[in-house]
């Protein structure tokens, strides 16, 4: 029995080696086409002018911010149930990417809403929820960082992700409830389903696909890095053991 169930991670690293370049290329091209098309070849909105084009970056990043956490939740569950090393490392790799997506969603959301609210940051439900999600990401990443024994860190972060998800979900509704309290109705928030003018529909889909593939590429890359780091640690431990 090797130091850890190595067969599976090694196979994963080989698979990543093969499919990383194609997915990276595909996501880059999807993003390029989607963004360029959305930016240049769509009519400005008669109400907001060209500001509406921010939706091509805001909606996909917001979507990925939430999907990244859901992926981490699934990966943590797999680790807790079947101790599948690659899945917990994938969760660990996805967290920073998810955090960046949340940051992007907040920044673009703030910029998009600025003309409407007159400030760069309005405490409206959507943006506030992203800020809360960002805190959850920070907590998760901090816990990985603080625990030295990686085996235990995997268990603890998985339990945190499970429990955190319940309260992240509750926070979403608490923020909605909190917002109704203020006189400002929901209409001002980005929640209102922007009736997506059909000209924007296709480029938006492209952007979403591009962002999703970008996420997948980054997670594959970072998971392979985590596996290599653990393997180096194993070899280093063996070298120290031999020297002793």
């Amino acid at each position, binding site marked *: 029995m090797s130091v850890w169930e190595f067969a599976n991670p090694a196979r994963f690293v080989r698979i990543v080696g093969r499919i990383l370049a194609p997915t990276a290329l595909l996501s880059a091209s999807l993003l390029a086409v989607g963004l360029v098309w959305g930016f240049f070849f769509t009519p400005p909105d008669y109400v907001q002018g060209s*500001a509406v084009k921010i939706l091509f970056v805001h909606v996909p990043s917001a979507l990925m911010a939430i999907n990244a956490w859901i992926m981490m939740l699934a990966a943590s569950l797999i680790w807790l149930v079947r101790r599948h090393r690659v899945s917990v490392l994938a969760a660990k790799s996805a967290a920073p*990417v998810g955090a960046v997506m949340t940051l992007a969603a907040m920044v673009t959301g703030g910029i998009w809403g600025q003309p409407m609210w007159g400030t760069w940051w309005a405490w409206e439900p959507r943006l506030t929820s992203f800020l809360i999600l960002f805190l959850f990401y920070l907590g998760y990443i901090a816990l990985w960082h603080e625990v030295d024994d990686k085996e235990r860190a995997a268990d603890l972060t998985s339990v945190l992700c499970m429990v955190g998800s319940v309260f992240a979900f509750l926070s979403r509704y608490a923020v909605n409830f909190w917002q109704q309290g203020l006189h400002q109705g929901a209409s001002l928030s980005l929640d209102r389903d922007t009736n997506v003018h059909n000209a924007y529909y296709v480029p938006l889909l492209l952007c979403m696909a591009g962002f999703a593939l970008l996420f997948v590429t980054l997670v594959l890359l970072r998971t392979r890095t985590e596996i*290599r780091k653990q393997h180096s640690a194993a070899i280093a431990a063996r070298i120290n053991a031999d020297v002793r």
Partner: protein
Amino acid sequence: MFAELGQYQFEVLAAYGATILLIGGIVALSAASSAAALRKLNELRSLEKRNE
């Protein structure tokens, strides 16, 4: 096509710019840490072979 860039409000440029910056950052970071990890791994593996 680029002539019309002027009439775009500042927001759109800022939003696109910020997103590209953030995404670029995480991509660069990931690529760098991947390369570093591979280098360290190969280094350790050759060290281990030399010890044998």
